[in-house]
């Protein structure tokens, strides 16, 4: 039995979520190979070779993979993946983009965003915004799976000494090209990897008021998120959205400020270890999942919180 794990990276360094994906691979069992596809990304392959429990690293270094274009990457993974029983990628916007394409090319039904491995053929996955958990079973020859990173504890980044093998496989489907990107620049930790997340909702009233949350976040080393309502209202960009259709987070501490707690938001954060809710409406559903609830006007409570940290 063998598992191919697709490495998530930015051509310079490996993204932490790859370690969670390898953890899921270990629970499935078998030899683990990590595929690094990108451009000028040999440093990433060296990093991947050190991951605890990885047997081999395949490096596909080619301009066609520089921006992780789904059409090119899927052709590569479908070809490389043929020899494997499992193909895993993180359920990030990269994995979600190219992996269904791989599954279709291999004529298999993909399994999206597993949250647990029951046995080698059986997995749990949330459906209906996490309001139900499905146990699914697959007897397919190849199992193509995305992994919810927050549901698996990462393996150690060091301790392995896998060999790195170069793949001379340039796949350019020729139907898509990269035009540009605007990446949010922030000194704060990544939302999905942060130990503490503080999120604002519609109660923040406008984007400028998020400054209060940034100040608290800087004291706690936290990432800042938002509910869909705050994103829809244009307070903050969509990459800050936590929820069913945004990012899934499970930090040690999640602080929800001015968020009512719609099921779509809860879907993205209810696996957090400790949840704090600050809301002036004591009937807000967020209090039903909060470990500590503070019924207060956020415009008084948040600055006070900042001063007391």
């Amino acid at each position, binding site marked *: 039995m063998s598992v191919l794990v697709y490495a998530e990276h930015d051509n310079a360094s490996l993204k932490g979520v790859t370690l969670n994906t390898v953890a899921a691979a270990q629970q499935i069992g078998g030899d683990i190979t990590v595929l690094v596809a990108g451009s000028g990304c040999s440093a990433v392959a060296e990093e991947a070779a050190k991951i605890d429990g990885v047997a081999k690293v395949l490096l596909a270094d080619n301009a066609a993979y520089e921006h992780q274009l789904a059409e090119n990457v899927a052709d590569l993974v479908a070809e490389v993946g043929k020899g494997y029983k499992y193909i895993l990628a993180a359920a990030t916007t990269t994995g979600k983009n190219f992996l269904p394409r791989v599954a279709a090319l291999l004529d298999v039904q993909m399994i999206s965003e597993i949250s647990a491995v029951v046995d080698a053929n059986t997995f749990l996955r949330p459906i209906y915004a996490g309001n139900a958990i499905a146990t699914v079973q697959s007897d397919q020859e190849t199992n193509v799976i995305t992994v919810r990173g927050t549901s698996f504890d990462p393996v150690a980044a060091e301790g392995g000494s896998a060999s790195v093998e170069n793949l001379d496989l340039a796949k350019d*489907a020729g*139907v898509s090209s990269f035009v540009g990107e605007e990446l949010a620049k922030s000194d704060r930790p990544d939302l999905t990897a942060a130990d503490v997340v503080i999120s604002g909702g519609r109660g923040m009233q406008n984007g400028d008021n998020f400054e209060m949350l940034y100040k608290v976040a800087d004291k706690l080393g936290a990432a800042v998120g938002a509910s869909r309502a705050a994103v829809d209202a244009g307070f903050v960009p969509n990459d800050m959205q936590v929820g069913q*259709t945004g990012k899934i987070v499970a930090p040690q501490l999640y602080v929800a400020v001015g968020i009512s707690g719609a099921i779509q938001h809860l879907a993205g954060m209810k696996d957090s270890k400790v949840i704090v809710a600050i809301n002036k409406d004591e009937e807000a559903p967020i*209090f039903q999942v909060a470990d500590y609830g503070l019924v207060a006007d956020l415009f008084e409570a948040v600055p006070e919180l900042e001063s007391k940290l």
Partner: protein
Amino acid sequence: MKVLVAVKRVVDYNVKVRVAADNSGVDLNNVKMAMNPFCEIAVEEAVRLKEKGVATEIVAVAVGPKQAQEQIRTALALGADRGILVEAEDVQPLGVAKLLKAIVDEEKPDLVILGKQAIDGDNNQTGQMLAALAGMGQGTFASEVNVAEGSVKVTREIDGGLQTVELKLPAVVTTDLRLNEPRYASLPNIMKAKKKPLDTKAPGDFGVDVSPLVKTVKVEPPAERQAGVKVADVAELVDKLKNEAKVI
């Protein structure tokens, strides 16, 4: 230019679903059904392309039970020209993608717009799979779509921000929330929609096998999270976080 738009019938966005007593799935008896919200955005985008004079015809396609006619009628009321329903229940994304591929082969659209995911299965697969089967480029999680001669530029919502790609036409686009704000259908348009053509087909008409490849063994409610305590003020909150939860 012809645009194909896919729509799915799902449990209404506002319904709090409950797991069925026998754990076979979620209880759909007497539950309000509606068009998947991401599909509404897909229809809206197609209609806007038509209003701009870019699209000349919009075909709305659904794979689902007989009642999915309602969602196609909704798409027709919003501005689609005709509908195709492939009648089949519980088809998994690969099966849906194969049916859509067969329809793409017949209809030869220049652009196919789908929702990025349906809010029932939360799979986020069908658009990408269709693109793979049809050999097309894909612009997933779109927040902006600009059609030019022979190509389309799609701005995509990615984890770190936004990415823009250019795709050769024909291509597949899947919608994210910020692409547009869908309109409501007007009563006169709802009446007119009843007269628009709607074809009904079966998977067999396209020679597509839609038997499920992944089996759902059981469906259970998630672990309940117990509500905690209310604190009186910020000082107590900070104290609890430091000394009880030990998270700061």
